[in-house]
Structure formats: structure tokens, C-alpha cells
């Protein structure tokens, strides 16, 4: 299947040498997108996180050991494995900006998209969300709360793009020509280390576009051909090597 092209292609470049794994992005994401808290969040494969931080190890014993942290939002694939499999078009790659949508009122909860996504970016609402102690009063009005039984995922804070476009229109500017930084995701904004760069991959003036073409920028599981819009940057060879599967004799590209 060919990749759909858009005028604007929102993308990220995450510098893995700068991420220290503090978790600010995860907290900011949950608060921004109205994810429900959970009392026991220790079963990591049954806990909703639109962005989660993986720990990478160079596999060497002390003192040669090195560690890296990899924040994983939805990769917003150009050729998404999840979209074609959805039986009810609850997820689509069809809108300017190239963000893979997730229409939770449409989703029937079959979880086929979750099986399709090798990044584990998709999460299922195993139970109804609960906000104890009046926590629902801190919900933002931007993102509807999802009931149980539907799949959800990171949307690159799509509502922020809508808001930025609205603002541009009100101010009489071209909503398709936003300045860099007018629209960023909540995780990008929160990161105190500036590890996440967000912008239009198609706009050469945007930092993210420059980073994406760096020899230190690789994408996750590039050889599967999902053509993702999230780039990972590292100057460490061992980190780059863990971004894709390589046979022993294969060299990391770039």
C-alpha cells in the first residue's frame, strides 16, 4: 500500500541522549488527555499510557554499562499497520497533518489494531475509567473521556492543533502556515530537557525536519516499512542499533 502524502506532516524527533526518564511527559500526557489514574499501575502491559518510557540497556556489565530511556508516543505511521485492519474505520490516516486518528465512539473494541501495532502504542479500556475523590473536576474540556471497551492511543494532542488553527484564523493568519512552536504536544511542552522536538516534517525551516535528516536520526523498526513520523536521535551507536532488528552481520544504516 502506498503512503498518503500531506502538505503538513507533523512529526517528532526525540533525542535519546537527552532523555533521563523522569516521567514528566507521561504525567503531562495523562492530565492533558484525560486518562484515568489507576491504583495499581504495576502491570505495565495492562495500564493505559499514550506515551510510555522504555529503558534501554547496552547489555554490558558494570562498569561498561550504559542506559538510555526511550519515550514512545504513537509513531503516527505514514503506512499504519493499524488503519487498514480496522473493520469499522475507527482509525484513519486521512487528514492533513498526517496524524493517525482514533474515533473512539466508532471503535467496537475488537483490538485487531492492537495486534497489528508492533510499537504497542494502542491501549484498550479494560474497565470503565474512575476518577476517585473528585479528580474528574480536573479534567480538561479538550478530549472526551472514553468508556470501557474501546481502543485509544496518542493523537499528538490533535486538539492542540485545532486550537492553534482556530487561533490563526481568528487572527487572520493562514492556519496551514503555523509558526514553529505554535502547536506542540503536551509531552513536548513538558520535557524539561528539551528531548522532544515537534513540528512539520515537510517544512524545511522546522527544527524537526532538520533533525529527521540527521545521520543520527533513525525511526523505530524502519525496515518493517511503517514509515513512521517519529524520529529518534542518538549519537550512541548501541542505542541506534536497538531501534530496529539487525542480523549479526548487518550494519546500522546511516
Amino acid at each position: 500500500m502506498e503512503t498518503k502524502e500531506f502538505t503538513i506532516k507533523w512529526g517528532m524527533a526525540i533525542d535519546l541522549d537527552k532523555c533521563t526518564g523522569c516521567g514528566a511527559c507521561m504525567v503531562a500526557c495523562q492530565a492533558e488527555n484525560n486518562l484515568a489514574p489507576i491504583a495499581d499501575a504495576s502491570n505495565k502491559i495492562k495500564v493505559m499510557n499514550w506515551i510510555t518510557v522504555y529503558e534501554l540497556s547496552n547489555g554490558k556489565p558494570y562498569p561498561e554499562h550504559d542506559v538510555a530511556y526511550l519515550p514512545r508516543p504513537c509513531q503516527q505511521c505514514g503506512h499504519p499497520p493499524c488503519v487498514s485492519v480496522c473493520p469499522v474505520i475507527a482509525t484513519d490516516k486521512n487528514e492533513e497533518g498526517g496524524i493517525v486518528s482514533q474515533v473512539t465512539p466508532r471503535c467496537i473494541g475488537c483490538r485487531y489494531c492492537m495486534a497489528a501495532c508492533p510499537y504497542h502504542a494502542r491501549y484498550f479500556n479494560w474497565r470503565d475509567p474512575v476518577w476517585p475523590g473528585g479528580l474528574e473536576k480536573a479534567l480538561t474540556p479538550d478530549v472526551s473521556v472514553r468508556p470501557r471497551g474501546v481502543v485509544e492511543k496518542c493523537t499528538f494532542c490533535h486538539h492542540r492543533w485545532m486550537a492553534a488553527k482556530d487561533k490563526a484564523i481568528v487572527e487572520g493568519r493562514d492556519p496551514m502556515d503555523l509558526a514553529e512552536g505554535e502547536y506542540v504536544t503536551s509531552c513536548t511542552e513538558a520535557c524539561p530537557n528539551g528531548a522532544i522536538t515537534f513540528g512539520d516534517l515537510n517544512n524545511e525551516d522546522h527544527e524537526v525536519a532538520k533533525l529527521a535528516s540527521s545521520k543520527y536520526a533513525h525511526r523505530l523498526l524502519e525496515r518493517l516499512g511503517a514509515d513512521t513520523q517519529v524520529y529518534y536521535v542518538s549519537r550512541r551507536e548501541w542505542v541506534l542499533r536497538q531501534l530496529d532488528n539487525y542480523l549479526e552481520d548487518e550494519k546500522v544504516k546511516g
Partner: protein
Amino acid sequence: MGKNYSLPADHELFPEGTTRCSLTKFSVWMGLVGAVALWGLYAAFRVLAEGLGVTGLDDYFGFGLWITFDLAVIALGAGAFFTGLLRYILNIDPLKNIINLTVIIGFICYSGAMLILVLDVGQPIRAWFGYWHANVHSMLTEVIFCITCYLIVLIIEYIPLILEQKQLNRIPILHHLAHNLHVWMPLFAGIGAFLSTFHQGSLGGMYGVLFGRPYVLRDGFFIWPWTFFLFVISAVGSGPVFTVLIATLMEKMTGKKLVSWEIKTLMGKIAGAMLLVYLVFKFADTYAWVVDVLPRSGLTFDQNFYQTIYGKWLLWSELFLCGVVPCAILLTPKLRNNPALFYSAALLDCIGITINRYVFTVQALAMPVMPFDTWETYNPNWAEWGATALVLAYGAIVLSLSYRYLPIFPQERALNATKSS
């Protein structure tokens, strides 16, 4: 007319010229099965009331026991469409002696699968969106279309059997209806074969298209990955012997001969032939996967297996013990005619197909694709086993009632008359 009190109270409802156990004995049996069903209903209730959080499924294993079970019973239920195809379209007449049972098993398998799906989708109230907002590119859409349509076909095929019940058949309109439906049966068999072939294929296609999962990813022909064809052939290579196994189980439980040995071995021979075709393709497919799909994904063969739970023994069992071995037995007349070997082969065949559906469903999800990710393991919990048991109990109930009251085994009278004389 004087009553014969030595006959069960409901003997008037029995098929012509047959005997059945006492109503008390039958009720005890139904009570036992009913108890299992009640446990399953409780599980189903909890799932519907609280959500899928009560199951052992998680975000890595969105598919688990239920999907494996569905795929397995749909494959094993393929005896229905395939036997129908052979009987009505290819006119292999002796199969009329087992066709009714294949229809009932098919009906149970498909309706049971639907029941499970109602639990397995997160929003069952929206399940029909598959039609309303269909995505024609999704293999799952095709599955939804075909299995719902095919279930209707199976119901249509099942209805005349019910109408042939001794008392119902006395009502002229029902008698005529049943007769007319029989006349049209080749048409339904044809439609059934078409629908069934497609959704068996689409179920396989569902996995083969997952290019994010090199464990199941397969190239293919036009829009269909090889798994599309493999699933079809493997279903017809196992469905017939599954019917035979069920018939034999019923014989053991009732103490009667229901299907002649000739018919059973004929079914075995047919399944064996299809299994051979399947194995040729399956070995070719596995070879292509190992030398092409995996290396181009940057993976080695060994990386696809993990400890014992997802070990290579599953693959070797599927290919050899449950593939080559039963195939050889079923296709060698001398071995096939040994009942012990024959039934073992049938069982191994069914197990092999189930392993295949299991690894495609579960092992595919267990395997990390991102190098820094880890293998995860999945164990179904009580709620999943409960709902699965519900479907098994439901099948037992339908089959028990059908056997007791419907004339599904044309050979029953003759076989048992011979035995008693």
C-alpha cells in the same frame, strides 16, 4: 391406545425406530452440562457488566483464549461446508450419512464463536458497525460479513432437520417446508462453501497482513497473503475428522452405532488428502518465512521462540507429530483401517490445527518486535475459561437434544438392528 411404561416418557418424540435412554438419565446429563453452562453464564455476565478487565487479556495480548478458541472451532466446524460441498455439489453420495451431523456441528461451532465474540469485543452494542461503517480493506470486515452470513446459511440448513422431527413432520406445512428446503439444499451448500472458504481464508489473512508482526507476516497472491489459503486448506483438512470424532464420542456415550466405519474412513481419507495438500503448502510457507520474511525483518529463526511456553516444540508438534504423522495414517489404507490409529490420527490432526491457530494468535503477540521490548506470557483466567466452557456446554446441549429427538443419523436403525440380531 395403551401406554408402554417401559419406554421413556418422551419416547413419542424420538426419531422413528430408535431407542433412547430414560428421561431421568437424560435429565441428569443435561443438569450436569447445565451446571457448567451456569458457571459460564456467570463469567459472561461479569464480562458484560464490568468490562474485559475481568479477563486475563491485556494490552499485549488483545487476543487470547477466546480468539484461539473461535479460530479453532471455526476451522474444525469446516466439516459442515466441506462435506456439504462434496455431498451436494460433487455428489459424493455416501456422505449423506454424516452430513446432518456436520451441519449441526457447524452450527454449534459458528453460533458458539459468535457468542464468544459478543463477549470479546469491547462494545458489543456496536458490533454491527462492521456492516454500517465497513472498512473493505480489512480482513476482519470480510470475516464479519462471511461468518454472520454463513451462520444464517447454517441455520437454514439446520431448520429442515428440526422440521423432520417425528411430531413436527406430521404438520403438513412444516413437512412441505422441510421437503422444499431439502430440494434447495445444494444451493445453500454452494453459498455456504463460498462464504466459508472466504472467511476461513480471511481469518488466515487477518494474520498474514500484519506487517508489524514478522512472526505471522506472509507474502501472498494479489491481496491475499499465503495464510489466507493455508487457513482454508487446513480447515478442510481437519473439519471432516473432527465430525468423525464427535460422532464416535456420541457412539461411546450412547452405546450405539451411529455412523458406519466406511463413512468414517471415507471422511478420514478426504481429510488426509486435504491435509497432505495443506502440509505441502505449509512446509513451503514455513521455509519461505524462515529464509525470506525473517531475515528481511532482521530476525533469526531462534528469536521467534521463547522458553517452553512459546518453544520450538510447538512448531515441530504442529508440523510433524500433528501434521505428517496423521496425514500418513489417514492416507495409508492399512493404517487407516486400524481404529486406534485412525482415531489417534484424527485427534492429532485436530490438535495440530488448534496449535496452529494458537501460535498465530498468541505467540505472535507474545514476541517482542522492538529489540528493547521483552517476551510476555499469557494465561487465560477463570472468566475466559468459564465463557469457553459455556460454549462447550451449549454445544453439548444442542447436540444432545438433536440426537435424542431428531433423525440425524440415517444409518442408526440399520447399524443397531444388525448389532442386536
